[in-house]
């Protein structure tokens, strides 16, 4: 084992996984389609090429992309297995994602002005939020999609990146958010920049709640809260925001039907298993069906789970690749996050540090929220699994984040 792992280069692992996956997929459905082979080759060539590019050009941390490629490969194989057409689309998005990864790497490394654009981040986010509110359409119970030229586009995925940049900018140069004293009713009111910052964050979260994106709202709050803790804004701020979250949660449970339902289902999905608890029950059936090694690719019935290719893809992985496969995915995410933290820890430059930290926290908690949700460890809030779930917006946003993280890593290591 030791000698294997010594001579074994990680990139081989990705190539082998793709090879096995796509050979299986080729035989999976009759008639055998040549496109399966092409799709597999595309993924393999693309991954190797970009990995070699990172190595040769020394673009910083070499593990980030490797780990993400493995996750994306597992995702593509699973999605292709579930639905050939979606699988092909996912590979196209993956290709686009890797290109955006490189672009965002170079764009972020090239200029040094990113910490000064705090108003741009907030402003762009606001515009995107308003566009969603005006032009948004309801898909799957969340009003967070814009349809542009036939493409479904989820602005909140892009806002995720902007939000991290916004927070990082604030903690680098808080004075940017100073606002002049306001004279109201002949009294001078001065607001500390932290107040402005907190108000802005609540604006982000408020818009997400308006779009019924509970998962993202929770995610944004957690990242915000950890930043407050890490950057030592004092016990008072922490307590105040904690109380706000508690109040918001309780009010949501009492007055928002959707939130109450989600929590009730989490407590007992079997009470209304034919209706409200159906999704999570199907997810648990799938996870249970796999056992430790899974049924084998194409031999389970993950198609019984609603929304299996997006939010519930992890359940499908557990069914066909087993609990061991699921744990491997969790460990891959953990490695990715560990690398992210390592970058955040080793860099001295404050903006890069907070950007790396923010993106890593985003990846980490987004993963935990959805994995906890589909396994019924926590209440379920619809949110995608980064790099694995089907979806262009999600994949593109994740790869842009990764590109930025990669750029920061170059300065760190």
């Amino acid at each position, binding site marked *: 084992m030791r000698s294997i792992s010594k001579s074994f280069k990680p990139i081989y692992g990705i190539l082998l996984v793709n090879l096995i996956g796509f050979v299986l997929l080729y035989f999976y459905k009759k008639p055998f389609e040549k496109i399966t082979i092409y799709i597999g080759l595309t993924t393999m060539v693309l991954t190797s090429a970009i990995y070699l590019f990172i190595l040769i050009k020394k673009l910083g941390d070499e593990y980030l992309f490797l780990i993400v490629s493995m996750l994306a490969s597992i995702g593509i194989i699973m999605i292709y297995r579930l639905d050939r057409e979606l699988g092909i689309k996912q590979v196209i998005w993956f290709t686009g994602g890797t290109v955006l990864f490189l672009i965002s790497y170079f764009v972020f490394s090239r200029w040094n002005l990113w910490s000064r654009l705090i108003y741009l981040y907030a402003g762009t986010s606001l515009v995107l939020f308003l566009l969603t509110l005006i032009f948004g359409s309801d898909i799957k119970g969340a009003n967070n999609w814009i349809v542009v030229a036939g493409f479904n586009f989820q602005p909140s995925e892009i806002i995720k990146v902007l939000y991290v940049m916004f927070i990082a900018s604030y903690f680098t140069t808080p004075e940017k958010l100073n606002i002049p004293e306001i004279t109201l009713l002949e009294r001078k009111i001065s607001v500390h920049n932290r107040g402005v910052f907190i108000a802005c964050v609540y604006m982000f979260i408020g818009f997400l709640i308006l779009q019924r994106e509970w998962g993202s709202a929770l995610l944004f709050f957690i990242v915000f809260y*950890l930043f407050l*803790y*890490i*950057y*030592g804004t004092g016990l008072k701020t922490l307590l105040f925001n904690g109380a706000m979250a508690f109040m918001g949660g309780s009010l949501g449970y009492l007055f928002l039907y959707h939130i109450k339902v989600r929590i009730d289902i989490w407590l007992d999905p*079997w009470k209304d*298993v*034919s209706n409200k608890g*159906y999704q999570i*029950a*199907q997810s*648990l*059936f799938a*996870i*249970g*069906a796999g*056992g*430790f090694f899974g049924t084998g690719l194409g031999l*389970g*019935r993950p198609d*019984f789970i609603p929304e299996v290719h997006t939010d519930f893809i992890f359940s499908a992985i*557990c069914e066909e690749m087993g*609990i061991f496969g*699921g*744990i491997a995915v*969790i*460990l891959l*995410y*953990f490695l990715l*996050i*560990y690398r992210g*933290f390592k970058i*955040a*820890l080793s860099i001295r430059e404050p903006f890069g*540090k907070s950007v790396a*930290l923010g993106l890593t*926290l985003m990846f*980490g*908690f987004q993963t*935990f929220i959805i*994995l*906890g949700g589909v*396994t019924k*460890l926590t209440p379920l809030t619809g949110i995608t699994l980064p790099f694995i779930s089907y979806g262009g917006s999600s994949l593109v946003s994740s790869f842009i984040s990764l590109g930025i993280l990669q750029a920061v890593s170059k300065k760190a290591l």
Partner: protein
Amino acid sequence: MNINRKIVHALIVISILFLSLIIYLTYFELFTKDKVIASSYNRRQFETEEKTLRGSIQDRNGTVLASSALEKEQQVRKYPYGPLYSHVIGYNSKIYGKSLLEAKYNDFLLGLNQISMVFGLRDKLSGNMKTGNNLQLTLDHKLQDKASKLLAGRKGAIVAIQPKTGEILAMVSEPDFDPNDQKLVKNWGKMVESKDAPFLSRAAQGLYNPGSTFKILISAAAVEKGMADRLFEDKGITVIDGKKFSNFNGEAHGKINLKTALAFSSNTVFSQVGVELGEGTLRDMAGRVGIGKDIGFDIPVSESIFPYSSMSKTDMASVGIGQGKMMVTPLHMAMIAAGVANEGQMMKPILVSKITTNDGRTIRNQKPSELYNMMSKETAAAVKEMMQEVVEKGTGRNAAIKGVKVAGKTGTAENEFTGREKNREHAWFVAFAPADKPQIAVAVVLEYSGSTGGSIAAPIARDLIAAWVKQ
């Protein structure tokens, strides 16, 4: 650096969350998943069943008692003999689930066990539908049919066992039901609400007071204590601690020995014997034959009970004549009779003798095994002799067969109606034959028949034994 220290805190938090995910998943896999995936909302369950042609169930001679076939792409479970095996095989329904053998041997019938998984690959290769394993039962279709006809719709049960091996030859309970899916759907509602409890497998799950059949065991204990040759005074009635114990119809038999007392089922004698044996011996005897213990069977079986915490003299007298609070199943009574026939060795009851794959490979072969050592060879021989007397001269004369030595014991058991309504007793008869080389042991119980075991249960046992022995 202060910030770095706090970043490490965040890393620790995420590590704990991820670790808890892994632990939770493992825990789910090991402990909770079995319950979860058994939910009827899990369509996967039906998936495997649909993909596998369920194995068939046959009697000891290969007569098919249950089989599956494809009809319009749908798998249908067929029970060609309708209700005859409903209390042995049970039912297999998409709506109501599974019961009895269909439930207990589900994994085998679907071929879900490890060994055939490997060989099942051949089916995968050829693209055929997977086939499950077949069960071979110890039941004899002709005897089962005969037993059912003899019971003729009266509420009760019949169990027939081969004494040497413990193989169940026939097991009939009435009322029964038709387990074929259409009939089941049609009658389900009515049957669930019925007071007659048609879903109760009386033979294995019905608990009855054993009545005088229990005197077989009292006699055995008495023989062990050296009372075989003692003469007892039978005045037709005796009073123990102020409670009267009288013979059937108050008949007095005068000075009689144990053998005659058993032949005429003398309550006067056996109530005294019960008191003389005492609590310890009675308890010991009940324990030795497995009363109050799990006898382990292929279908769910009720445990016979001996529910005394401490016994008064009247309790001992009641147990002596087989009334009292103890309860037994017909299956258990048949096993006791078979145990006497088998020189005091009670065998483990077997219903499924063999499991074979579709291509005839045997994957499980049930060998006979001893369950309890009830009594010594000598005691068994003495009791057997006394039981022959019952059929030759005593209350069991209706069970006599020309040319076959039958050993038996009648019983008329009190129940919840006793003392309130007349003629509601259960009628019992247990027997085995031929006495010198036993081939079959039988227990017959007729619920609330209001008649004596000798008059209505004994003829049933006789006909069943005759059918088997003369075959």
